[in-house]
């Protein structure tokens, strides 16, 4: 069975869902409706949130860390979140470049550039998802660490 929507269409809907979660228009976990139960979620690198997670591990480990360190009481600002600007797709995969807007641990404006790699099953749910950005700046911005 083929996907009913293209990977790009689903990715755009997913980013809109992430923005609703980040801006407080929806629950902070609404975006998980796009995840299959078999997803491999990859956050590369050596920073506190880095790892490879199942959906259950994301809910247990990553989501609370995001809510406390990344979102915190800053959830609720309009227009916060990820905005895709380039989509390269083939088959059931899409690579998305996106810019983000948020606030750091001092409530200062924070932005980053993301490369998202998404693979979907026939139901249009994410089965492999690489979430990559300049996590060196994220680590400093959200945890307050300094680079020496």
């Amino acid at each position, binding site marked *: 069975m083929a996907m009913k929507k293209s990977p790009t269409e689903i990715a755009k809907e997913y980013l809109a869902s992430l923005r609703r979660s980040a801006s407080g228009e929806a629950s902070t976990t609404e975006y998980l409706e796009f995840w299959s139960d078999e997803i491999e979620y990859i956050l590369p690198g050596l920073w506190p949130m880095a790892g490879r997670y199942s959906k259950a591990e994301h809910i247990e480990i990553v989501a609370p860390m995001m809510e406390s360190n990344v979102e915190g009481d800053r959830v609720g600002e309009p227009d916060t979140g990820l905005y895709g600007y380039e989509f390269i797709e083939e088959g059931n995969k899409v690579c998305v470049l996106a810019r983000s807007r948020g606030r750091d641990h001092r409530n200062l404006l924070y932005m980053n550039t993301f490369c998202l790699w998404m693979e979907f099953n026939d139901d249009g749910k994410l089965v492999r998802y*690489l979430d990559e950005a300049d*996590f*060196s700046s994220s680590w400093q911005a959200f945890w307050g660490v300094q*680079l020496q």
Partner: protein
Amino acid sequence: MEYPADKRGGEMEPKEVVTEFISRCDAGLAGREGGDPYALLAEGIELRIQGHTILAGDYVGREIIEKVLVGGLATRVAKARIELDSLIGDGAKVASLLRITGETIDGKVYNPKDDPGGCLFTVNEDQISQIRLFLDNTMVETVLYGRQYVAPELGEEA
């Protein structure tokens, strides 16, 4: 320096060009015969490394990529591999997941978890005209350049 181009009049699919380029890079890093990777780069190639590390920024032209980026990295890197995890193409645009691993001259392992990273290419007439590379910046800072992330002293942030 002369860079012989592998011009074949648009005979190769963009994904083939990228696959061949990665293969040549990996062979070159391993000291194997694999063809000249620079020959697959357009003369005015634009390479951007995302982020805010010392490696981040724009490298325009094959000479700057070879002398500044690759030559600079060679002073820190003892061995490295570049392997293709996944590849998708949409016309001239190609997106890939690469597994870049290696070891520094002082024995630090780069990318010990074998994480994939994104790299986007634009290919025109069998040559790569644009590369956008997402290196893991926490690894670049700590493993390649020996820096550390430290908690601020109490009161330092005020």
